[in-house]
């Protein structure tokens, strides 16, 4: 095994190893030291986020126009500056209502992004993707593979329909006081849950695989550190 950690980085590695072990100790339960690590980590990330947001958003959108051309810049940044200023009132409990204007604006744009994004970014592409296997004319697949493609398309269509049926909320009230869907919807949704389970199972397995790599990497770092120490002393 070769050493990947340069000697000069030994101190940093030692810190990294210490932090790794401390975080691992969280498996035994919450304790003082691991909390210290977590709070320090949260603080660090908050600090970096603030600087990154300043460099990437506030500076180019608010300050740079003023620096480039103060007069035109003011015209350009007046409204966003006002909105930002109003939003800052949200930190005060008493004056927070003043910030509602900015918040309403932000929510409005967010809702548009939500609706537009969901329709154009998810709904329509996914619908189109379900149908596309049946579009034999535009298909670039070789003729020999078209049949299997069709079978695949049918299965995906059926699975999608069953999965969608699973979410049906409407039900009929029963004498017992409970509410149940129609029998055939229940049956379809039962099939749908199998598809959901498989989909989520695949994603879960992928998540585990990503975790295994993280574990292996940490073990490698620890081993490297131990070997470095052995060689160094």
């Amino acid at each position, binding site marked *: 095994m070769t050493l990947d950690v340069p000697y000069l980085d030994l101190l940093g590695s030692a810190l990294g190893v210490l932090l790794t072990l401390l975080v691992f100790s969280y498996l035994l339960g919450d304790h003082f030291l691991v909390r210290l690590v977590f709070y320090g980590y*949260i603080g660090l990330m*908050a600090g970096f986020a603030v600087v990154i947001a300043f460099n990437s958003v506030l500076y180019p959108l608010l300050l740079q126009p003023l620096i480039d051309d103060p007069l035109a810049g003011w015209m350009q940044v007046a409204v966003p500056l006002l909105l930002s200023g109003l939003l800052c009132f949200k930190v005060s*409990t008493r004056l927070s209502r003043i910030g*509602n204007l900015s918040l309403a604006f932000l929510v409005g744009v967010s809702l548009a992004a*939500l609706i537009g994004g969901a329709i154009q970014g998810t709904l329509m592409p996914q619908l189109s993707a*379900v149908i596309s296997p049946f579009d034999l004319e535009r298909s670039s697949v070789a003729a020999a593979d078209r049949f299997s493609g069709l079978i695949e398309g049918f299965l995906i*269509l059926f699975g999608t329909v069953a999965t969608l049926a699973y*979410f*049906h909320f*409407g039900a009929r009230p029963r004498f017992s006081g409970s509410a149940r869907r129609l029998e055939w919807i229940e049956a379809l949704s039962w099939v749908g849950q199998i598809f959901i389970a498989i989909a989520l199972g695949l994603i879960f397995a992928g998540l585990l695989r990503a975790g295994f790599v993280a574990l292996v990497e940490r073990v490698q770092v620890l081993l490297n550190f131990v070997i470095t120490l052995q060689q160094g002393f």
Partner: protein
Amino acid sequence: MTDGIGLLIFLALSLLLVLLTVMQRKRSYTLRELLAFQRLRRAIGLAVEDGKRIHVALGRGNLLSENFGSALIGLGVLKRLSSVALIADHPPIATSGEGGLMLLAQTGLQAAHQRFGLPPQDLPQKAQLVGVTPLSFAVGSGMEIRDERVAVDLLIGHLGSEAALICDASHQQGNLSIAGSDDLTAQAVFAAAASHPLFGEEAYAAVAYMDGEAVHRASLQTQDLARWAIILFLIFASVVKLIGL
């Protein structure tokens, strides 16, 4: 062309929602039973009685994307919970990983206080941005769960694999965790780690199952109708494509 279809979908859904909301007053839409919400109602009562808090994790969804939808549901749930829990002087706590969500949560809690004629106190503590990155958010939420005598954890918003840490903290405290998200990775995590996972659209039904207002029932009815329309469209379009029309 697709833009026009998008606009059409938007208009159709809007119209349907408004119509069905009006119609709800005549005939309420019956909803199927969802175990998670049955448990939630019971757990809320117990938590309020026990002087414990309810924790809502709003996630870290970006406001300017479609992730915002699940966070809106989380905010709606928070609003309903605060109405219940304020009576017992134990308002829920909300944690988020996004500044905008924190502001919205604080505004909602403040409105709930005002509805009860109570001065909003400790809003910065009750609705916090606990971390700005997914993992720092999860770690921060976990510590809030441990420190704040929480009995129920509702994870409704955009989360990812880090949600496992929140579910784990909840589990170790013996809490009930009900979790739903728009994110598939988070849903996969919830399938294994949450007490009651909400899959896909189920998370969007949370508010309707909590208060049963006309507009929320109408929402679900709209979704039901739209879903069947989509199913019919998929079948019809597939057949049309297949026969080459």
